């Protein structure tokens, strides 16, 4: 919400716009009310060199469709030629002309710049270009009769002002109007609040425009007042200036007053030409599916039963309720009698239409947040008062329609407020008698006695419905900064769970192995899973930003392979990466079968490197798993990969990415890979290691080499060695693997070093010979032969 400080000052003496300290005080007070001040800019500084000029004539140019040639007279007896792209100017208008050499607020200097070889001797200015607000929709027209050559600031009666831009949150619907802001601000700053009190009275004879509300849940109140004696003409400058500050261009007195009342009282409204209003009345109903209407912005739109239409007495649509009028319902220059609509539309209904049609307006923003359903009578009179400034013969007729549905919010909503509940939430030590002073000034009327008071909620605070809403108002007006600061005395102590500590250990181990952490996008392109050799079944986003990021990963593999491919393409080969992240396989349950996964990819490395990483991780976590090469995981290298089996459940996979998968991702290096279901790994708590007494007896080493078929895993032989060696074995390690001369085709030699030790004596040759025999026999069962 843009707040012009001089305008706000009409409702209370908040601060002189030329006094920086006072302006800061206002900004701070707004912030302390929850209206976060984004900016507070000084405006109204005039631009030297911009003067009033009259348009003598306008010409098109055959080669320039978007601009016109404008000939202007700036009162110095010399006709100037400028180019202009605005379409709101016509012959005889007085306009602000920036003469050659003028330095504009945005830094641009006006130069003799031409189009199509024809010079432009200056520029006609919009309100925005002159720093008068946001309006850039046309040239800022100057009052008729302005002396030519007069600086535009004088002509407009400009003075220095401050434009504050404040964020209006959803719980402050009334702050889309000046009066709503001023009431709260006056209470906060301790200044007198001066709401507008219209002097207008209803004098005219009774004239009624019948109103029928068909869908009362969408529109609970619709008032129509007939006002005659209207003369459509330009607005006074003060009003045009204020609207310009709000980003609205002055159009005519009737439209401007309509906007002004909306900004002042937060009551959107619409004036219809009664003489052209079909059937002389209104009908408010939802659209039939496919019903069409051309809205004020010139677009023809189709509506559905989710949208509310304002129709005339003949049931012909003339506007979209609470959002935008129809193009044909605009008043014309000849309008003399209007039917003034003031209505209340349901926020949820407005939200539906805005979301569905993407059509928004100043009115829809206000109705969507919630407008005062009981503010209409005042707004009608204020409208008439303001319009009578330019229409002295204005008459407000009696007999106005005020149709109401059963959904109309009552004006006397109350809640009980317990002072101990206030103190319990805020930590304050208020007494019940403190409540009226905090609440009455902002329209929450406190009554009753005792510890629980009755509070009548203001009709403009649709957000307020419960005790806690009143507590928040108390907190704001008491002051958040006065609530104090304490630390809760918790009986608990902080800490990470076992699972969280183990996750950190996994990271530390991997980082220590020189592997870095990646976080690629969890949203995959359709087909990415299949490309990685994985089942394509997955959950999809129904409203993705882009299709390439619409599939939820069921594996971390595709994302990491993309990262390797990306880095390879930037001459960064050999990346070692891991990712810890959630994957989301589909399921029939309430939620997908989401779990936490770990994947390690080692570019430029072969399968043994991934096995080594697994061994390191497993050792650190006190975790065992069988490396089962008989089951080749999908998408991995058929002869260099294995399933990790922990009990019956597969825990993951280790090995190398299949060559065809690498090719599909355009990765040229080999990639060793480890994939683990981290939930399994983290949730299984390792028992603390138990002490085994270290022997004081000397140990002996025994080296044994076996020939074993390639088809039998070395892991099995090691198991056999352990079994065969018996109790004297304290350690065994595979120290040599050899294929070649001296070893039969399809076989390899596996050399194991056994460390033997007894707890109570020195080993004898007989002991060692016995171990040797045991091992030999156990190995023989696998078809392994001891090499001599």
């Amino acid at each position: 919400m843009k707040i012009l400080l001089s305008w706000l000052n009409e409702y209370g003496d908040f601060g002189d716009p030329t006094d920086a300290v006072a302006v800061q005080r206002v900004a701070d007070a707004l912030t302390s009310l929850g209206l976060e001040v984004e900016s507070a800019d000084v405006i109204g500084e005039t631009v030297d060199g911009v003067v009033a000029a009259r348009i003598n004539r306008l010409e098109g140019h055959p080669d320039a469709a978007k601009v016109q040639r404008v000939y202007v007279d700036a009162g110095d007896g010399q006709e100037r030629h400028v180019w202009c792209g605005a379409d709101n100017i016509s012959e005889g208008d007085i306009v602000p002309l920036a003469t050659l050499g003028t330095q504009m607020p945005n830094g641009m200097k006006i130069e003799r710049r031409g189009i199509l070889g024809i010079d432009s001797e200056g520029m006609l200015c919009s309100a925005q270009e002159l720093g008068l607000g946001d309006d850039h929709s046309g040239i800022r027209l100057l009052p008729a009769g302005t002396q030519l050559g007069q600086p535009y600031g004088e002509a407009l009666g400009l003075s220095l002002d401050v434009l504050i831009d404040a964020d209006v949150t959803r719980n402050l619907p009334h702050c889309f109007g000046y009066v709503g802001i001023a009431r709260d601000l006056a209470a906060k700053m301790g200044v007198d609040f001066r709401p507008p009190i219209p002097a207008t009275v209803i004098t005219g004879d009774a004239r009624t425009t019948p109103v029928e509300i068909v869908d009362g849940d969408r529109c609970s109140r619709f008032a129509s007042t007939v006002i005659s004696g209207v003369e459509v003409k330009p607005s006074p400058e003060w009003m045009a200036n204020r609207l310009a500050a709000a980003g609205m261009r002055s159009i005519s007195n009737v439209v401007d007053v309509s906007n002004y009342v909306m900004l002042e009282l937060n009551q959107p409204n619409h004036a219809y030409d009664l003489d052209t209003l079909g059937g002389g009345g209104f009908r408010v109903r939802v659209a039939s599916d496919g019903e069409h209407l051309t809205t004020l912005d010139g677009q023809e739109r189709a509506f559905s039963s989710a949208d509310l239409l304002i129709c005339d007495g003949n049931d012909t649509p003339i506007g979209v309720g609470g959002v935008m009028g129809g193009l044909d319902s605009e008043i014309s220059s000849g309008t003399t009698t209007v039917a003034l609509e003031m209505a209340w539309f349901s926020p949820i209904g407005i939200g539906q239409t805005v979301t569905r049609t993407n059509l928004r307006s100043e009115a829809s923003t206000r109705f969507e947040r919630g407008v005062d359903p009981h503010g209409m009578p005042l707004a009608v009179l204020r409208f008439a008062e303001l319009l009578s400034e330019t229409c002295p013969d204005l008459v407000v007729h009696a007999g106005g329609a005020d149709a109401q549905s059963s959904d109309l919010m009552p004006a006397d909503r109350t809640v009980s407020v317990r002072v101990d509940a206030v103190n319990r939430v805020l930590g304050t030590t208020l007494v019940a008698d403190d409540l009226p002073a905090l609440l009455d000034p902002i329209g929450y009327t406190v009554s009753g006695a005792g510890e629980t008071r009755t509070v009548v909620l203001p009709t403009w605070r649709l957000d307020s419905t419960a005790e806690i809403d009143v507590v928040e108002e108390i907190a704001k007006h008491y002051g958040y900064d006065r609530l104090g600061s304490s630390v809760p005395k918790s009986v608990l102590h902080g800490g990470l769970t076992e699972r969280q500590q183990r996750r950190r250990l996994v990271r530390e181990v991997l980082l220590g192995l020189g592997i870095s952490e990646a976080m690629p996008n969890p949203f995959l392109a359709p087909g990415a899973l299949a490309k990685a050799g994985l089942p394509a079944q997955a959950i999809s986003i129904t409203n993705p930003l882009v299709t390439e990021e619409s599939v939820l990963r069921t594996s971390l593999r595709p994302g990491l392979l993309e990262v390797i491919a990306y880095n390879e393409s930037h001459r960064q080969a050999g990346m070692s990466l891991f990712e810890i992240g959630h994957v989301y396989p589909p399921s029939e349950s309430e939620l997908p079968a989401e779990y936490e996964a770990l994947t390690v990819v080692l570019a430029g490395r072969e399968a043994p490197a991934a096995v080594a990483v697994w061994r390191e991780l497993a050792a650190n976590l006190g975790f065992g798993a069988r490396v089962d090469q008989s089951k080749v995981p999908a998408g991995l290298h058929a002869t260099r990969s294995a399933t990790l089996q922990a009990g019956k459940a597969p825990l993951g996979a280790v090995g190398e990415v299949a060559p065809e998968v690498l090719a599909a991702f355009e990765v040229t290096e080999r990639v060793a890979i480890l994939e683990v279901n981290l939930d399994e790994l983290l949730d299984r708590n390792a028992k603390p290691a138990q002490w085994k007494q270290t022997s004081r007896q000397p140990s002996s080493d025994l080296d044994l080499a076996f020939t074993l078929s390639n088809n039998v895993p070395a892991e099995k032989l090691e198991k056999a060695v352990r079994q065969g060696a018996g109790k004297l074995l304290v350690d065994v390690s595979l120290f040599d693997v050899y294929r070649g001369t001296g070893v039969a085709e399809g076989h390899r030699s596996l050399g194991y070093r056994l460390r033997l030790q007894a707890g109570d004596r020195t080993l004898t040759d007989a002991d060692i010979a016995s171990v040797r025999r045991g091992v030999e026999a156990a190995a023989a069962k696998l078809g392994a032969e001891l090499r001599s």
Partner: protein
Amino acid sequence: MITDITAAKDAALAHIVAATTVDEIVALATRYAGKKGEFANLKKQLGGLDTIDEKKAAGAAVNDAMIAIDAALDERRSVLKSAALVAQVEGERLDLTEFFAAPTRGHAHLVTQAWERLEDVFVGLGFTVAEGPEIETDWHNFEALNMPIGHPARGEWDTLFVDHVPPDGQPGTTVLRTHTSPVQIRTMLAEEPPIYIVAPGRVFRRDTPDATHMPVFHQIEGLVIDRNITMADLAGTIDAFTKAYFGPGFNSRLRPSYFPFTEPSAEFDIQRPDGSWIELGGSGMVHPNVLLACNLDPDEWSGFAFGFGIDRMAKERHGVGDLRDMYADDKRFVEQF
């Protein structure tokens, strides 16, 4: 005989002094001082002397000679050993600056680094860390948080919906969580108060990526539910966090704002030692409707919640100019941190 002894001693001492290696010393020790060495032999010859006096004198001379030789051997051995060590060490000289290979340590993701720092600070303040699923039900993500179906504030979350349909459920009711607040709901449903948790995690919004926004990002939320928890406790906890995380010279303030799930609601700002302010996150007293949704009586239990972005903390700590770079996993970026 004395003359022979003296001559032998002088010869032996000359040999010893002339020795240049420890090996030579070993050989000389055997030759002169060994059990079968020259002087041992001389000792054996003492019996052949005629008189006691001669025997005594010659015996003393041999002993003196042997003592002198032992001393000379020890001294020479020691000198040669030292020299050998010096020579060995000198011969093993390395220029260590030749071995400045690139470090091979792995790099934790910046988000992880910030995440763990934040967890550690909150653990120090007495919080435990709670986690939950990233795909959520509409109920946990919105409804239980005082945003019933049709609530206008829902639109502000730019929610991503997925095509998962729960059994007996409606399509369009499963979402990628837009905040970690559903973890608060799950915790309140599963555990009895008192509750002191932080919930860090990945969240999702339908936001086009730019320098400061990503559709996938991370936030951390805190929740305290206990008896007699007040808004002053919220202010004090935010301030304790501010000082623990940023440093003792930093301050914090609460300023009114609006969130559907808290009331009163507040934004919290952090003041740097130079007086400037950073807007950090949102907070407030847990809304009674949220407590009721989690079967907690608002007249018995009260609490506060707060939340802010993790990515932004990482971004500002390391001066990262563009969030998109943080998620590109480019080696040149990864290895900077």
